[in-house]
């Protein structure tokens, strides 16, 4: 065998494009190659080391240090040759005995069968999930009363059949084994020192306490009663809350959520005089300007926005179709920024400057009528803003009146939102591309101010009892409020929560909260559509819902969620018959009825908005950013959100869309800033600012990050999340204060020395990972979160995993190039020189077909009869949101493997989303996403090397995997050019032990139609063969042919961008066949002769030629 030598990157010629997976990869492709190889050798070393068992790791280390000792005395727990023969013989005999008669198994039918439940046939129920102020209609699959999968509801306007990644992972949260099971009674001082302050109590006791609170409040009008709730869009919750307010006029209800829309709401109030829900229709827009807004990621209505955005860029008929253009101005890469056609990296505090300059440009040069507002916008300093970002963008906006959208993110102050509203109105977008709907809760106030008022009352001892419904303010309240201290000093406190978390520990009573899939409720979408939330299962852990507890506080003795919701619905209806009909229809469709109409085009109140800017200009005092005046921007985590999903291993492990970091959060920092601060990847820095508490966090040098700006996400570093979430990552909320909820300036960063690292070890998880670049070297320290040699924090990330060795993969072109050369994935080299990291020219192939002309050495199969399953993925549509990844895991029982296993390159994702940086500037790269699953090669390299025929072809062209035949040689994974085969090095569903270790509730989330794989077995994407079989059997049963679109893979179902289609390639009318026949379609690595069934549509970027060089 000849050894491949990595090529060295030559100096690229003009106009050449370069794809890279990480900064290390870009600077030193040979090193990346080495790292990829060391992953392989890591697994070899791991085979020796049996890394599941930390104790054994220590033993191995000792053994390596003292080789002679090993030779002399047998290691603890080892057995000699005789012992081995004895056990081998005995186990053979036992095995033979076991074969003789399988164990007796019982079948337990229902005693009284529930209606509509057929064993073996899943039921589907429509319900709704609340996320981030938006309600997402969902359909839940239930097997004999056990919900196993969530899908989108086509009838619901905010879902239209798609979901986000949080909806997909909600199934795991339902079965989370660490959810609290009983009410808890707490004391301030434990009865005996060293024991827990909280002891289990009964619901009767808790009900008595709640009744007592209600009675006391009744007596004094609730003067001493305070409620702390989360922002809500439930009509029943709002009804009950208002009823409580009417009954107890003195009681105060405060709102808190660490990720909130206070700025957005205030901006609308400033512009329109009232709070409104803004729904942009991205499908209709030609030009979109996003100002620090992650509308494709964590902002409200992400599913709806993604659907619209990708619909405006689908190019169904080729290059002649219109395509929208997205400009993004932001400090840190987000999903939105990664999908931008043009992106300006700008510190978050400077985004306002940019918007004002843009508004002035529009008003001065393009006659956009801002009225008196234009005069209030003072002179703007445009340092750091390229001229073209003002002139060209303004020209585009002015040229696309009523066809453009400006949108600002939650981090930006209210006046920025107000100016955006004014610009949308002046450009004629209002009523065309931007609609305004009545807000769910017009009374909703500023969360930070609300919590501040509560704390002020607590300080004044004006609070007798505080009832907290959901949320975790002890963990995420702004540091300056010292909320935890005040809460601990209270005489009465009750926390309704799914887990006994940080806040529960500080309260005197804790009540388990029911999951959304366990309780009745109702949710209102951004556009006002109300849907009923119907439970799929009785509360697993005896929880109650918010509305039930709220009703109890209002004096209701035994409220039922069902009755409360029915009362709300009945209130809006005329008759009892209407109620019966409406209710049944609402449960069936998942939508109660159309919501209120949108407001007409709204004009902004220019004088008020102008005044806000004048006032802000007077108060401005922010100096220029520098290494001793850093900016820190906070954002909702694209995985854990605000920390509420912190105990979900699927989300903890999910690679971050930008950095591909798993199991941790990092501080994103630009290369220049890192050099100025003297830090490198994994260095831990302490961030300090006046007013906030210091925060320690590991840094990660991130391309596309604004200089002197540090991007951090909330939700990590939880100390009381549960068995999976405890002590992962770094908690950044201590740095947040009420005056700097999103953007904190004046931050100083200092690298921690070794002594200081030791001091923070207690807060971090111990991970047994090898040190340095080569895990095979055996320098293993299982008890240290830091690297032995470099003292860098160990970060498991997947960005260099599954390297396809620099071959042409995610192929992209600009719209202009596409117009000139429609078949660009085949002929890119004609118009421009594309090279890979190793300097090879990519993409030059035979005209029309990329397949080699030499046939394989064995007879080829004719797939033209029957079904020929195939998939097509549109790289232009894919926004990299990761919903498909989680959907695949839930559907196919794919486990999370843990931080250490990821470090060893052993992630189990059947479907991964590769993220490529494109371009030669490490600071301002473009991004290409590419979801890669098994492409089901017709000439599969994996099949030829399997010694036991465990992977075989089906007549329909699926590359089948028979788990029970697999003996784990891993030859197939080695021979797979796509790197999509995954090996079960350990029993990943267990915590290293047997299946008895898996918590009972966790077992309930498995899809019963897919095998749960054990250790030693290879696995990979099957195109959701269980769904194909279900469709085929149904067709056999009914005699009706399989319709295109009736069999939907889990990833396709979840995708909000509609980037994935699946179907029968032998049916020329199927969507997948049409996509495959498109001009920009190509098959990944088809030049190897694998005949992949998955095809990709090349990524198109809609670049503005006037922006060149900006």
């Amino acid at each position, binding site marked *: 065998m000849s050894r491949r030598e990595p090529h060295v990157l030559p100096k690229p010629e003009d106009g050449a494009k370069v794809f890279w997976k990480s900064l290390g990869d870009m600077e030193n492709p040979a090193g990346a190659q080495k790292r990829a190889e060391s992953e392989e050798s890591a697994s070899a070393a791991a085979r020796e080391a049996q890394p599941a068992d930390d104790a054994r790791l220590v033993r191995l280390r000792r053994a390596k240090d003292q080789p002679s000792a090993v030779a002399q005395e047998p290691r603890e727990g080892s057995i000699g040759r005789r012992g081995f023969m004895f056990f081998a013989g005995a186990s053979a005999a036992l095995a*033979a005995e076991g*074969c*003789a*008669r*399988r164990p*007796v*198994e*019982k*079948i*337990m*039918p*229902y*005693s*009284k*069968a529930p209606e509509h439940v*057929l*064993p*073996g*046939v899943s039921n589907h129920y429509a319900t709704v999930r609340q996320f981030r102020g938006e309600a997402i209609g969902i359909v839940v699959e239930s097997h004999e009363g056990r919900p196993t999968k969530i899908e989108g509801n086509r009838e619901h306007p905010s879902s239209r059949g798609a979901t986000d990644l949080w909806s997909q992972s909600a199934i795991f949260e339902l079965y989370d084994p660490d959810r609290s099971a009983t009410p808890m009674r707490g004391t301030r001082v434990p009865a005996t020192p060293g024991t827990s302050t909280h002891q289990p109590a009964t619901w009767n006791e808790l009900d008595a306490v709640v009744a007592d609170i209600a009675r006391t409040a009744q007596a004094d009008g609730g003067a001493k009663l305070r409620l702390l709730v989360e922002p809500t869009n439930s009509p029943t919750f709002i009804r009950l809350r208002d009823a409580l307010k009417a009954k107890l006029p003195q009681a105060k209800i405060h709102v808190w959520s660490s990720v909130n829309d206070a700025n957005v709401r205030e901006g609308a109030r400033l512009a329109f005089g009232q709070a409104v829900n803004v729904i942009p229709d991205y499908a209709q827009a030609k030009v979109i300007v996003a100002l620090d807004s992650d509308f494709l990621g964590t902002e409200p209505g992400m599913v709806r926005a993604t659907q619209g955005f990708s619909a405006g860029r689908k190019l169904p008929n080729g290059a002649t179709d219109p395509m929208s253009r997205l400009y993004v101005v932001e400090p840190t890469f987000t999903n939105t920024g990664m999908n931008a056609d043009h992106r300006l990296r700008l510190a978050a505090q400077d985004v306002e400057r940019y918007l004002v300059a843009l508004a002035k440009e529009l008003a001065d040069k393009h006659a956009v009528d801002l009225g008196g507002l234009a005069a209030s916008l003072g002179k703007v300093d445009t340092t750091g803003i390229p001229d073209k970002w003002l002139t060209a963008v303004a020209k585009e906006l002015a040229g696309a009146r009523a066809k453009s959208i400006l949108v600002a993110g939650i981090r930006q102050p209210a006046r920025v939102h107000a100016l955006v509203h004014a610009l949308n109105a002046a450009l004629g977008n209002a009523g065309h591309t931007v609609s305004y709907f009545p807000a769910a809760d017009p009374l909703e106030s500023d969360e930070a101010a609300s919590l501040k008022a509560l704390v002020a009352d607590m300080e004044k001892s004006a609070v007798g009892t505080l009832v907290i419904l959901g949320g975790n303010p002890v963990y995420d309240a702004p540091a300056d409020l010292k909320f935890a201290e005040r809460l601990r000093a209270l005489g009465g406190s009750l926390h309704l929560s799914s887990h006994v978390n940080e806040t529960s520990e500080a309260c005197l009573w804790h009540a388990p909260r029911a999951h959304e899939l366990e309780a009745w409720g109702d949710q209102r979408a951004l556009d006002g559509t109300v849907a009923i939330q119907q439970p799929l299962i009785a509360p697993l852990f005896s929880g109650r819902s918010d509305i039930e507890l709220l009703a109890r506080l209002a004096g209701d003795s035994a409220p039922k969620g069902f009755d409360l919701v029915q009362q709300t619905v009945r209130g809006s209806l005329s008759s009892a018959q209407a109620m019966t009909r409406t209710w049944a229809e609402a449960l069936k469709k998942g939508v109660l009825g159309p919501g209120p109409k949108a407001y007409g085009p709204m004009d902004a109140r220019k004088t008020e908005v102008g005044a806000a800017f004048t006032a802000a200009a007077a108060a401005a005092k922010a100096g220029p950013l520098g290494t001793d005046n850093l900016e820190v921007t906070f954002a909702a985590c694209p995985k854990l959100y605000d920390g509420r999903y912190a105990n979900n291993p699927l989300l903890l492990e999910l690679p971050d869309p930008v950095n591909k970091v798993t199991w941790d959060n990092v501080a994103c920092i630009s290369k220049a800033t890192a050099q100025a601060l003297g830090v490198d990847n994994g260095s831990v820095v302490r961030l300090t600012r006046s007013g906030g508490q210091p925060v320690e966090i590991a840094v990660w040098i991130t391309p596309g990050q604004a200089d002197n700006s540090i991007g951090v996400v909330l939700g990590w570093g939880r100390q009381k999340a549960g068995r999976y979430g405890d002590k992962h990552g770094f908690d950044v909320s201590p740095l947040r204060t009420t005056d700097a909820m999103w953007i904190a300036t004046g931050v100083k960063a200092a690298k921690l020395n070794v002594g200081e690292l030791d001091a923070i070890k207690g807060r971090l998880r111990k991970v047994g990972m090898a040190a340095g670049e080569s895990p095979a070297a055996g320098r293993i320290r299982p008890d240290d979160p830091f690297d032995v040699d470099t003292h860098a924090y160990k970060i498991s990330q997947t960005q260099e995993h599954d390297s396809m060795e620099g071959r042409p993969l995610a192929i992209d072109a600009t719209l202009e190039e596409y117009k000139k050369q429609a078949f660009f994935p085949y002929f890119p080299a004609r118009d421009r020189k594309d090279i890979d990291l190793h300097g090879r020219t990519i993409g030059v192939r035979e005209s029309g077909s990329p397949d080699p002309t030499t046939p394989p050495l064995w007879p080829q199969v004719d797939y033209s009869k*029957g079904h020929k399953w195939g998939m097509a993925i549109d790289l232009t549509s894919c926004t990299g949101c990761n919903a498909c990844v989680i959907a695949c895991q839930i559907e196919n029982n794919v486990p999370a493997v843990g931080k250490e296993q990821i470090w060893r390159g052993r992630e189990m994702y059947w479907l991964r989303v590769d993220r490529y940086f494109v371009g030669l500037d490490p600071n301002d790269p473009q991004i290409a996403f590419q979801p890669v699953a098994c492409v089901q090669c017709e000439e599969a390299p994996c099949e030829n090397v399997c010694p036991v025929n465990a992977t*075989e*072809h*089906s*007549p329909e062209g*699926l590359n*089948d*995997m*028979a*788990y*029970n035949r697999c003996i784990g040689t891993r030859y197939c994974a080695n021979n797979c050019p796509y790197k999509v085969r995954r090996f079960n090095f350990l029993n990943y569903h267990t915590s290293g032990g047997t299946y008895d270790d898996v918590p009972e509730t966790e077992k309930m989330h498995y899809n019963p*139609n*897919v*095998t749960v794989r054990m250790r030693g077995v290879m696995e990979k994407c*099957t195109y959701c*063969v*269980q769904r*194909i*079989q279900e469709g085929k*059997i149904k067709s*056999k*049963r009914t005699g009706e042919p399989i319709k295109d679109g009736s069999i939907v893979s889990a990833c396709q179902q979840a995708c909000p961008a509609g980037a994935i289609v699946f179907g029968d390639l032998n049916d020329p009318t199927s969507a997948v066949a049409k996509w495959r026949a498109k001009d920009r379609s190509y098959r990944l690595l088809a030049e190897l002769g694998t005949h992949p069934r998955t095809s990709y549509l090349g990524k198109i970027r809609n670049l503005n030629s006037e922006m060149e060089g900006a």
Partner: protein
Amino acid sequence: MQIFPRSLNKLPLLLGGVGTIVPALLIGAIWYYLTPKNFQVGYSPTQPVPYSHRLHAGQMGMDCRYCHANVEVSAKAMIPPTQVCMGCHSMVKTDSARLAPVRASWESGKPIEWVQVHKLPDHAYFDHSAHLAAGVGCATCHGRVDEMETLRAETPLSMGWCLDCHRDPKPNLRPKDQITNMNWKPEMAQGWTPPEVNPPKHCSGCHR
């Protein structure tokens, strides 16, 4: 010098013979006896209720689907809920001691713990409805249930046995209206041509 007695001259031959025959017998015995054909067939455990298929399906002529109601629509044929038993036995044989467990289950709501007779491995995803749709009769796999006092397994249900039929299904097909007919014989369908059913012979047909 003669060290070994002359009688040992035959030892190599003997060893050669025994060394071949004994392992061959052993392998043959394991091959034959330790198979589903030998162990699965004839399995007839005692059930918590001495339910007689001979009485219900045979003498009384009840259709299989009266109790196994799901069989045409679901992967699972379904053991009937206690409710179905009580549909008749709330009026018939109301004081039979043999039915005591059924009444107990009906009153307590706890299931009757039937012992599974026809067992497939967990990684085999068998679907009753697909087989019925193709025209495989109940008796083809389950035998003459109408003649069994206690239910017993009649067929090995091994992968090889499944594949024998999947490779050549026609001899085991019958008109769809005769699926539950226990007495049906191929001669009874003169002139009827079995349809092309094209059963899966690849891994993912049954293993997912």
